[in-house]
Structures are given as C-alpha cells and as structure tokens.
C-alpha cells in the first residue's frame, strides 16, 4: 500500500475539525489574554490580567455561577423525579397508554423561546391568567419581579420544558428491563415499594446517570429562558453564568474579558461535571 496521499484524504476532516473546534478554542484562549473591547479593538497582549480580574474583583460572575449551580441542580433533580414518576405511570399496562406517552412528550416538541414567551404571559403580574386566578383568594404573587419567586418561575418553566426528555430516556430504560427480577421479587413477596427500591431503581441506575449528566450539561447552558423571562432580573436575581458572559461580551463588547470568562467557565464545567459523574456512579452503582 502506498500511503503517500493519506494526508490528502484526511485533510477535509482535519480542516473541519480545526475550523470549528480547535481554532475557536485556541482563539478564545488568545483573546482572553487581550484587552479587546469596543474602545480599543485589537489583539494586544495583557497576560493573565483578565483572569486576575475574574478571581479578584468579579464577584458578580461567581454569584451568577452559584445561582446557575442552584438552578441546574434543582431543575434536573425535579425533572428526574417527575420524569421517573411519569415513566413509571405509563410503563405498565394502563388505559390510553399510547395517548399518555405522546402527551407527556409535547413540551419537548415545542420551541423553547416561544414557550417561554407564553409562560411569561401566563405569569405576567397584572395581566396574566395565573394572578387573575390567584386574585380570587386575594393573592398577587410577584412571579417575575420578586427575588425569590423569579427563580421559582425560571425553575417551573425549565422543568415543564425538559421533564419530557427525562421521561423519554427513563421510559426507554424501563421498557428494556429484564422480566425475571420482577418475577423473582413477586415470588419473594416484595410489595410495590420494595420492588422499586431493590429491583427497578438499581436496574435503572446506569441509564439514570446518563440521563442526569446529559440534562446537567444542557441545564448549565440555560440562557434563552432567563433572557426572555426575566432578562436576569430583578437586579441580578436570575442571572446565570452564560447570561452574564453574554452581557459582558455582546452587550458591553468586552471581548477579551468575556473570552476569559468563557474559558474559566469551560474549565470549571468540565471539572465539576466529571466530579458529579463520578459521584453519581459511586452513589448509584456502588460496587464498580
């Protein structure tokens, strides 16, 4: 065999890889060491100055990161619990099984931004139907402009939008489980509670971990919901990392600094998700 032209054949793939992955990452790293902004555009070199700024001065970024952690962990936990419950509901033979299976998937099929606009209308404090209804009891909660409630609103919308994804993965997992453990459990006299704890849950552990990790990665990118629903407000009550980076980069045009923020964020996410995955595996599949 003549390997003279092997690089020629590898070239298209390599070019794509370099063009869409390696160059952007490399450029971001270089950009993060410049002070490029709207007043002084250009790739100058300021060393690690931007990074010192993040770790020494920028408490807003770390607060946003803390908020992001809280929001993603809460929403993914709720999605997992609800998704599992729904999947268990339509797993066994019930009436209208097919109908429910499709029904539970509808939120995932809608366009997130548009659904968020609709949710925003729902929760509108003076014009929305939710408060219209609650007014009957004399309540008028500030869904979008209270510091705590606005977080809950974001959580509600996120959970509604993405629980179907969990539901889908977990149902697929449930449907692929072997029969024998259930027969054995019923022969051993285990009731539904024990069967779930000792049979279903352990058998579902691997797929659960996969589903949770996928959703955590997705949830940590949360941006559109916040942007449309509250724009990070009131104040910075619902501002998340990606939204903050968006503000720094594409509203204030501090390209150099936002590149440093992005890169820091990327490193933190890679480390923390690796740790989370390890911990989940340790917790759920205890012996491997």
């Amino acid at each position, binding site marked *: 065999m003549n390997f003279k032209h092997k690089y020629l054949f590898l070239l298209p793939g390599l070019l794509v890889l370099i063009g869409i992955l390696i160059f952007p990452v490399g450029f971001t790293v270089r950009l993060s060491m410049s002070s490029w902004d709207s007043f002084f555009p250009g790739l100058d070199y300021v060393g690690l100055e931007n990074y010192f700024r993040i770790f020494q001065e920028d408490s807003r970024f770390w607060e946003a990161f803390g908020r992001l952690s809280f929001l993603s962990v809460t929403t993914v936990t709720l999605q997992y619990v609800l998704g599992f419950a729904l999947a268990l509901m339509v797993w066994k033979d019930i009436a209208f099984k097919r109908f429910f299976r499709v029904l539970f998937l509808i939120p995932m099929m809608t366009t997130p931004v548009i659904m968020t606009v609709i949710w925003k209308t729902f929760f509108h404090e003076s014009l929305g139907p939710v408060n219209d209804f609650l007014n009957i009891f004399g309540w008028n909660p500030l869904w979008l402009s209270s510091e705590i409630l606005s977080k809950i609103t974001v959580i509600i919308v996120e959970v509604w939008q993405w629980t179907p994804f969990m539901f889908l993965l977990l149902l697929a997992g449930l449907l692929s489980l072997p029969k024998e453990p259930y027969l054995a459990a*019923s*022969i051993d*006299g285990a009731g539904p509670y024990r069967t779930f704890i000792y049979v279903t849950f352990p058998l579902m552990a691997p797929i659960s971990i996969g589903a949770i990790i996928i959703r955590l990665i997705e949830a940590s990118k949360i941006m559109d919901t916040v942007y449309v629903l509250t724009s990070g407000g009131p104040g910075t009550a619902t501002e998340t990392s990606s939204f903050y980076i968006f503000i720094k980069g594409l509203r204030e045009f501090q390209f150099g600094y936002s590149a440093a923020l992005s890169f820091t964020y990327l490193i933190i996410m890679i480390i923390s998700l690796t740790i989370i995955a390890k911990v989940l595996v340790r917790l759920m599949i205890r*012996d491997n």
Partner: protein
Amino acid sequence: MAKIELNNVAHSYSPAVEEPEYALKKCNLIWKDGGRYAVLGPSGCGKTTMLNIMSGLVKPSEGFINFDGFDVTNISTSERNIAQVFQFPVIYNTMTVAQNLGFPLLCRNYSKDEITKKVDQVAQTLGLEDLLDLRATKLTADQKQLISLGRGLVREDVAAILMDEPLTVIDPDLKFRLRRRLKEINELYKSTLIYVTHDQNEAMTFAENILVMDHGKIVQVGTPLELFERPKTTFVGYFIGSPAMNMLQAEIKGKNVVSIGETVISTETDLSKVKSKNIKLGIRSEFVELHDKGKKNCISVEIDRVDDFGNFQLVSARHGKSPIKAKVHRDIAVPAGKAWMKFPETRCCVYSDEVLL
C-alpha cells in the same frame, strides 16, 4: 409443602382467537407432597408455561389449580407461597448475600433474629457461609444461582420449589454436586421439588418421577426406569435414552408376533385386537444382542460402523434401509459386514400409531 393438583388446566397465550393455539393442552395432574419431579421435553413444548401456571406468574386460560385441596387459581404468586428459580440467576444487586437470602423473610415481616437464624441455616446447607457479608454482585454465576435457590429455601413452609432449567449456567462438575445437594435438600426439608429441563440426564439422575411433554401435551409420567424400558410413545422412545430407541417398521403376523420384512420377531404383547397398519417395533440399543448365527428372534444386519466409547461399543448397523444401533460390551469382538442381532422377547415394545400397546 403441599399436594398440587391441576384440574383440566390448559393455557393459550391468545385465548380470544377463534381456534386458539394451546401452549399447554388440557391436563389433569397431581404432584405429590414432598415428591421430586422433573419435567422433560424439547424447547417450546410448554414446560415453562406449566411451571408459571403453578407459581401464578401465568393465569391459565382454562381450569383450576388446587394446593392441598384449596383453589389457588386466582391467588397471587406471593400468597401462593411458592419458590421459583429461573434459568438465569436473579439477585438483588444492592444487597449482600445475607440480605439477599433473608429478603423473602423480610418481606413477610419476620423478626431480625429469626431472619439471621434461618439465613445462617440455609447458607450452611448451600455452602455459602463464608460469603454472607459479600456484596452479591461479586459472586460467580453458580454462586448467584445458589442464592436464587437459597431464597426459596429460607421459607421452610413453601408449597413447592419450582426450578426452570436452573443449572444451565453452571459447569458440569458443579452441576453434578448441585443436583445431589438438591436431592439432600428435598430429603431434609421434605419440600416438593419440580425441575424443568431439556436435558434427559439431568432429569434421570434427579427425579423420582419424570413428566415428558411434547407440543403442550403430557406424553408420559413415570419413573426413570419406566421411561427407559417402556416408553409410552415413539416420541418418548426417541427423546429419552442415548442413542434413541431403535424403531423398525413392522407388520402383525400373529397373536404375539410381528414381522420386519421377512424376519419374524415374537414379543410379549397381545396383538390380536390391533387394527392399525402403522406398527412399529421398538427396542433399546442396550438390549440388542449381537450374534454370529441366526437364531430365534434374530434379524440379519449389515454392520456399518463401530464406535468405541471406552466402557462400551456402539454398533451402527442396517437391516435393509432401517438403521439399528446396539450397545455391546467392549470385550466383544464385532464382526465386519454381515451379522445377526437378537431382540429379546421381553424387551420388545410394539407401537401402533406411535402409541405403546
């Protein structure tokens, strides 16, 4: 411990169809309390269906099941108090061996002391006492299968222990020891053991009574000896024994006499009332004698091949076109080419329309 009765039980997996196909055809059967049974048959003959009907995992589309005269047809599996071991070991991954063994007791609200006591007992019988604190996932396949079995044994009052090809995953040497242990357990606990298998050796060495099934029908129930010496149908003759029973097309020539081609063979069966033309003479290869001269009940054969199995020789021969096999002692010199084979009268089984007369 219970006597299990099947009354007119039949099962079809799609009973709503106009002419349902039965996985298990109508049968009446009594399993004696404390008996050791094997259900034997080729794959897909309804063995597992029968077992699942008894354990309650499948509700029969027709008929009733009685435990000690008590109708349990509509009672759930856990209330029937039955133990079942499946082909592949089922263990609870998150538990230790001891917790696995004690699980059926835990589900039935036994006290902690009682559970520990019984688990220790069963672990000793099964030789698992050193593994009790280990996580169950760390065990080998055969140890896992022992745990599955142990979960059935911790409840001493089980009506029956049903086993669905439980030793498939276990290597031959251990298989032998486990079968012996199962026998001991049966004698110790006096529990009814029902053992499904498609391996005749397993069935023969394990059971007091063997039930042979074919196409959803129970063909014969009997001791290993009965199945071997007097198979009720040609199917049982073929299925049991290695090599299969010799079957030769025959014609009735008199009260006790049949002919195979020109050769006349006398038997002990009364053939005077048989009308069918489909007659077969069956004889086990173990009972066929090899001779060098034609005598009474002898048939001329052409010897094709002799296989030496060490402890015996298997002679493959032909009479016309029908093959005959004979197991002979290893010291006997087998002639090449033509020879005579004797069918002893007492060993001949005559089948009319595939059924023993």
